[in-house]
């Protein structure tokens, strides 16, 4: 009897601890969002989003070039990473037991654990030093490396969700391997693939080190991919660590914009995933 009560009490205690832990996780996010919103909301308006930064003490000014720089470099990164990673995931899905697949999976996991600073340094040494200048192109390449493991791992998982019964049905209908991939597996997994890409984009959008080391920053509008380019994380870093109150305020505004973009991407991905799971 006593034993049962003791076990029940322990169980109850454990449940309370778990709920608390979950609560802490939510609280941290809520606090960050609250803080960023409170400090940032005052400066964010249309002209903040569309103007160039101004020198210290000059009123107005915004993050227009950094916003465009970030969008461009993240877009470029996705443009490079998505085709390569999805093609890689197709290989992993089609040849799950091959040696190459085992190596590729291992490499992908290791890559996902490499500090983004190192990715930035690598691209810096290979592209920036060789071409002689910081550039949006180098930034995009660095972000593509950051995105690659996220896209590959999630894509492989999503492709594997297409059941073997359907693959067999397709082959039994006289489809070739390639037709089965393009007409059955990819369309069937499309939603999940998009979710993975969105999460990777959200991750890349917030990366500071890779773009700082490859694209540096700029106070002007972007005119070519071969120029130093501004981005939101780097702008936040510079402004927040500056001694000027108006720049610090702009850092909070930029942080709010960045967090909002990332949040929207994540929430959309979550909703999409829910829809996919319900359909299944």
């Amino acid at each position, binding site marked *: 009897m006593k034993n049962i009560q003791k076990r029940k009490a322990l169980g109850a205690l454990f449940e309370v601890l778990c709920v608390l832990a979950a609560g802490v996780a939510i609280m941290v996010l809520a606090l960050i969002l609250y803080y960023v919103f409170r400090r940032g909301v005052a400066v964010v308006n249309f002209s903040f989003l569309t103007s160039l930064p101004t020198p210290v003490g000059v009123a107005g000014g915004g993050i227009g070039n950094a916003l465009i720089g970030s969008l461009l470099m993240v877009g470029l990164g996705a443009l490079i990473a998505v085709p390569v990673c999805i093609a890689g995931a197709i290989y992993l899905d089609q040849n799950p037991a091959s040696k190459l697949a085992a190596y590729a999976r291992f490499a992908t996991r290791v890559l996902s654990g490499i500090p983004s600073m190192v990715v930035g340094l690598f691209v810096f040494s290979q592209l920036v030093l060789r071409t002689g200048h910081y550039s949006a192109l180098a930034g995009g390449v660095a972000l593509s490396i950051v995105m690659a493991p996220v896209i590959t791992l999630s894509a492989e998982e999503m492709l594997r969700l297409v059941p073997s*019964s*359907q693959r067999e*049905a397709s*082959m*039994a*209908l*006289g*489809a070739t391997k390639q037709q089965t991939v393009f*007409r059955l597996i990819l369309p069937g997994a499309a939603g999940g693939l998009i979710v993975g890409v969105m999460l990777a984009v959200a991750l890349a959008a917030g990366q500071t080190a890779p773009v700082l080391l490859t694209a540096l920053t700029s106070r002007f509008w972007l005119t070519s991919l071969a120029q130093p380019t501004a981005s939101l994380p780097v702008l936040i870093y510079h402004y927040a660590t500056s001694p000027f109150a108006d720049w610090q305020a702009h850092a909070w505004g930029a942080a709010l914009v960045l967090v909002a973009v990332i949040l929207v991407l994540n929430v959309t991905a979550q909703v999409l995933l829910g829809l996919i799971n319900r359909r299944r």
Partner: protein
Amino acid sequence: MAQGVNIENFSFWYGPTQVVKNISLSAPERQVTALIGPSGCGKTTLLRSINRMHDLTTGTRSEGRITVGEEDIFSAAVDPVDLRRRVGMIFQTPSPFPHLSVYENVAAGLRLHGLARGKEIAERVEACLCKAALWEEVKEHLHRPGALLSGGQQQRLCIARALAVEPEVFLMDEPCASLDPVGTMRIEELIGELKHDYTVLIVTHNMHQASRISDQTAFLLNGEMVEVGITKEIFLAPQDPRTEAYLTWKIG
């Protein structure tokens, strides 16, 4: 054009394990041949050899000859992809393509093989759905996902999908295993229709089903063929004591 299937001295291995042992069996055209036997007796493996589905699995090996019509399916001249068009297969679990509508499921094979274009596709889709006894039930919502149909309807959709690519032989691997009695009855009626135009080989665990729908029955046990003959004779007067034991629920 229906074609008979002829299996001669066929053996099959998964790795070191032999699961089909020197089986010879002739499935005449426009007849239903039932393969019965306890789980693991090799009947599904034998069935899946006829459209070379095993090519997709590594570590398998076979010996012997299988012909569809006059053609040896293992000869170098035969492309397994084309063979699978000629030898349609229906699986235990209904497997319509879930991202496609009813219509597109049937059209899928036509598009894969470039068998029809434009308006012709719609005509062929309707004809196949009619032949699969599904048209009346789905004609109002052809563009809804095929996965929303009932299990029995999904299985008939798979039959329509297989019909579209004009096969010569139908392989059915326990097509009613996941269906309710009404769904099962519809499929059995359909098999009765199909055999006028196609050769049908069906694996079933349901011996009543075998006796109802097949012309010829083969009994397999541990990878060997124990007995094959006209269904009525097998069920009424089995020659081999093991067949009799199985039919009276003593084995399996």
